[in-house]
């Protein structure tokens, strides 16, 4: 059961440089069942206290800051990635229960659970014998 609501925005896919810090768009998976949406984002190098989630006007915005300490006195020999902050926002369907959004961070993966509102959850309807 999917309402095909497009939560992500297409114009946010490229890394950019904001206030001198490199900002990237984290890759995201979105799962769904009758009760909720589950959003998982890869944000390696981000500690729990450096994640900000904001929900405003039906838009969920995620900001996560690189928090791996620099290695003292070290020089880079080869680099395939740079420290980045992650930023991305999602447009939630009207039907979600914004009050009950919850999030957790484990092993560099941020999981956000977004419960659907009571009104749109499927329910079984009792048929009474007449």
């Amino acid at each position, binding site marked *: *059961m*999917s309402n095909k609501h497009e*939560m*992500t925005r297409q114009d946010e896919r490229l890394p950019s440089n904001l206030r001198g810090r490199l900002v990237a768009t984290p*890759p*995201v*998976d*979105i*799962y*769904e*069942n009758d009760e909720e*949406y*589950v959003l*998982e984002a*890869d*944000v*390696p*190098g*981000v*500690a729990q206290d450096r994640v900000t989630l904001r929900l405003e006007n039906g838009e969920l915005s995620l900001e996560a800051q690189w*928090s*791996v300490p620099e*290695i*003292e*006195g*070290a*020089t*880079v*020999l*080869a*680099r*395939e*990635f*740079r420290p980045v902050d992650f930023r991305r926002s999602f447009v939630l369907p009207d039907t979600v229960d914004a009050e009950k959004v919850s999030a957790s*961070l484990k*092993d*560099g*993966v941020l999981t956000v659970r977004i419960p659907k509102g009571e009104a749109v959850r499927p329910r079984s309807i009792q048929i009474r014998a007449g």
Partner: protein
Amino acid sequence: MLYGWLDFDRPWEAMDDFRRRMDRLFDDLDRETAPVREGTWPRGVLYDAGEHLVLQVAVPGLTKEEVQISGSQDVLTVSGERKMAAPEGHTTQRRERLPVRFCRSFAFPVKADVEHAEAGLKDGILTITVPKAPEVRPRSIAVQVS
């Protein structure tokens, strides 16, 4: 690079390719980021910290049981598998993170003592610290005034 498992039936060719790529990589130190193929996963950064070499690899979503590290005196190999599955009873609405089975080797520019390497995993960043071989460690030389 040793990224595709298909390369494993011709290990030497893969090794040569790997060396060529690493050589090119070290030639490109001035660049912001070393050239890596699109879709390369996981990615690493190699540091020279004086007495040690430090390799950091971004492996979000993997636990320490899911990552294997092996090495010789001048190469560290990080391998494992990232399985991606929808949570129980959920359907997938959007998929940008792909399941991957990986095996990546990172070459050291100097000899290192892999026996005494230490690895830690925190917030999806794997950090491996390897002491340099004694003969290549920096040493201070006292200047005698005569």
